């Protein structure tokens, strides 16, 4: 049996800490490409589902970190993207349990491009107000369906629901949103 001293153990532990980068689920190039393709859309999802821009900023990085630390073997880019959205959705749900304000409409009007007309601005405010009246799960469902173009199976996967129930839940969410837009 080899003689391993206490100092050897310490040296080994330092080496394993240095090797933490190889423990991440993707290499740098693959990650950066995936991030560049998905981060804008994910930020949009997080900001509209949480209703808080600051939360979106915080949860964006946390979502990617958890994806990198996951041990899931992804079959495709879509699979990886759906998994990322599932992480993001869970993080929003967790952050909702804290005392942060939900859907405070914190996306400032000054951020809207100068070329937008007054009517555009009003329409957008109406949409945000309508989204704010929905339950977080309904917002997430509508966003995934119409902003991301996700299938019922993908929505079910992201939100942890049964695929068969998505059609009805979407129908109800659409009705609720349309009703809120009409007011």
């Amino acid at each position: 049996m080899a003689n391993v001293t206490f100092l050897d153990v310490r040296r080994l532990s330092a080496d394993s800490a240095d090797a933490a980068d190889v423990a991440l689920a993707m290499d740098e190039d693959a990650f950066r490409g995936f991030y560049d393709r998905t981060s804008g859309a994910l930020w949009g999802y997080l900001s509209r589902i949480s209703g808080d821009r600051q939360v979106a900023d915080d949860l964006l990085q946390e979502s990617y970190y958890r994806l990198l630390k996951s041990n899931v073997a992804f079959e495709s880019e879509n699979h990886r993207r759906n998994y990322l959205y599932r992480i993001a959705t869970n993080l929003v749900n967790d952050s909702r349990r804290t005392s942060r304000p939900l859907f405070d409409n914190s996306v400032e009007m000054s951020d809207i491009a100068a070329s937008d007309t007054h009517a555009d601005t009003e329409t957008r405010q109406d949409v945000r107000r309508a989204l704010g009246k929905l339950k977080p799960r309904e917002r997430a469902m509508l966003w995934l369906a119409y902003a991301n173009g996700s299938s019922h199976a993908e929505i079910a996967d992201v939100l942890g629901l049964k695929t068969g129930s998505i059609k009805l839940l979407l129908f109800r969410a659409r009705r609720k949103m349309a009703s809120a837009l009409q007011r």
Partner: protein
Amino acid sequence: MKRDYSDPEIEAIVSEAIAAEASTARREARPPSSAIVWWRAQMRARAEATKAVERPLTIVHGLALAASMGLLVGVVGTAIGGLKGTIAWFAGIYASLAASGTSAVAIDFTSRWFMLPMTAMLISVVVLSVAAFVIFADE
């Protein structure tokens, strides 16, 4: 005035509104660069790995310290017992010197009252040196 819309009409209205909002959100998005996010993830993973690895070592440090403290207390206890015996031994010598009037006294270095405290002190010095080396090495 409200009117009743059919489901395809509602779907069109909602999908159009959300698609427009998504487009706005994408324009508003200012995510940090991928290089920064990657670097932060690396740093965090490394810090977490170091923390996880060093946790058992901290326990080992604590155990080593506790063991050496226990040993020291034991040694001190034994030394006190030995000291009492040594004092009695010196008192005996003094008494015998006074009684016989002899100048040369043969000190018995093999006596257990001499050997015990000396051995205890030697052990405590060695143990404490090893413990200090283990605890403070590489820090």
